[in-house]
C-alpha cells in the first residue's frame, strides 16, 4: 500500500507500470489482443500447412526456384524488419511521453509498410506476367493465398496505424491512445514474425530446393 501511494505522489518519474497498463480497462484490452494474436496465428498455421503440403505440386508450371526474386524478397524482409524496429521506437516514445517522436516513428513505420506492400504488389504482378497465376497450380494457389493473406494483414495494419496516428495527433498521449499505440504495434511485430517464417519456409526453402 505504501508503495502504491509513493507512486501516486511521485507522479510520472517512478511509474507503477507503463501508461498503457495503468487503467485496468485498457490492460484487459491488451490481454484480449494477445488472445486475438494467438488465434490469428492458427489462421497462418493452416495456410502454412497447406503450402508445405502442396509446394511441390507445380503441375509442370513455374517452380518456386523459377519465380522467386532474391533481391526482391530480401529488400521486402529488410523493410519489414526495420519497420518492426521503428514501431518499437514508437512504443518507446509513447512511454516516455514524447508525442512528436511518437508521431514521427509511426509515420516512418507506415512508410516502410507501404514500401513493403508496394514491392509485394510489384512481385505479384511480375509473377502473373510470367504466367505464374493463382490458377496455374496447387503450389501457386497456396503461395498467393499465404503471402497474400500476410500482405492484406500488413495493408490493414497500415490503415489502422494511420487512424491511431490521427487519434494521437488530436488527443495526445492518454491512457486510451497509449493502449491503441501499444496494440497496433503488437500487431505489427506479430506480422514481422509471420513474415520471417514466410521468408524461411517459402522463399529461402524455395531457393534452396
Amino acid at each position, binding site marked *: *500500500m505504501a*508503495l*502504491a501511494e*509513493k*507512486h501516486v505522489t511521485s507522479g510520472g518519474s*517512478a*511509474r*507503477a*507500470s*507503463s501508461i498503457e*497498463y*495503468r487503467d*485496468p480497462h485498457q*490492460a484487459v484490452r*491488451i*490481454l484480449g489482443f*494477445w*488472445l486475438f*494474436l*494467438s488465434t490469428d*496465428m*492458427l489462421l*497462418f*498455421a*493452416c495456410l*502454412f*500447412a*497447406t503450402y*508445405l*503440403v502442396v509446394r511441390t505440386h507445380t503441375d509442370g508450371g513455374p517452380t518456386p526456384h523459377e519465380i522467386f526474386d*532474391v533481391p526482391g524478397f*530480401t529488400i521486402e*524482409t*529488410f523493410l519489414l*524488419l*526495420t519497420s*518492426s*524496429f521503428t514501431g*518499437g*521506437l514508437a*512504443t*518507446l516514445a509513447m*512511454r*516516455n511521453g514524447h508525442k512528436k517522436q511518437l508521431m514521427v516513428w509511426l509515420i516512418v513505420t507506415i512508410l516502410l509498410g507501404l514500401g513493403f506492400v508496394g514491392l509485394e504488389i510489384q512481385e505479384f504482378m511480375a509473377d502473373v506476367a510470367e504466367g505464374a497465376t493463382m490458377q496455374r497450380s496447387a503450389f501457386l494457389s497456396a503461395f498467393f493465398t499465404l503471402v497474400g493473406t500476410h500482405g492484406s494483414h500488413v495493408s490493414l495494419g497500415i490503415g489502422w496505424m494511420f487512424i491511431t496516428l490521427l487519434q494521437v495527433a488530436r488527443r495526445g498521449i492518454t491512457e486510451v491512445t497509449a493502449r491503441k499505440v501499444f496494440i497496433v*504495434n*503488437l500487431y505489427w*511485430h*506479430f506480422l*514481422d*514474425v509471420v513474415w*520471417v*517464417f514466410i*521468408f*524461411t*519456409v517459402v522463399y*529461402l*526453402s524455395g*531457393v*534452396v*530446393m
Partner: protein
Amino acid sequence: MERGAQTTQHGHHSPTLYIVGYVLSLVLTAISFVLALTHAMSVGPMMWILMILAGLQILVQLFFFMHVTEGDGPPYHSVTLLIGLIFTFAICLMSIWIMTFHYQSY
C-alpha cells in the same frame, strides 16, 4: 498494489533494448540468408538450422519489441501464446507427416 512490484522490471525507457533487438533480427536474417544462398550444406540439416533461426526471431520480437514479460496480473497472454504456438507447429508438422503417406500412393 500488485502493480508496485512491476516498477523494477521496466523502470528504464531507453532505446537500448530495441537497438539490440533490431541488430539481432538483422544478424539472424543475414545468417539464414547466407546459408541458403551459398548452399553451405545439404538440404535436410540446413532446413533445421533455418527453422531454428526463425524460431529465435520469434523470441527476439517477443522479448525485445512486444514486451511479453510485462503486464499486470498472471501471464495469461503467455499461456495462450504458448498454446497457439504448439497448435501451429502441430498443424504444420502433422499435415506434412500425414501427407507423406499420400505421396507414396501416387
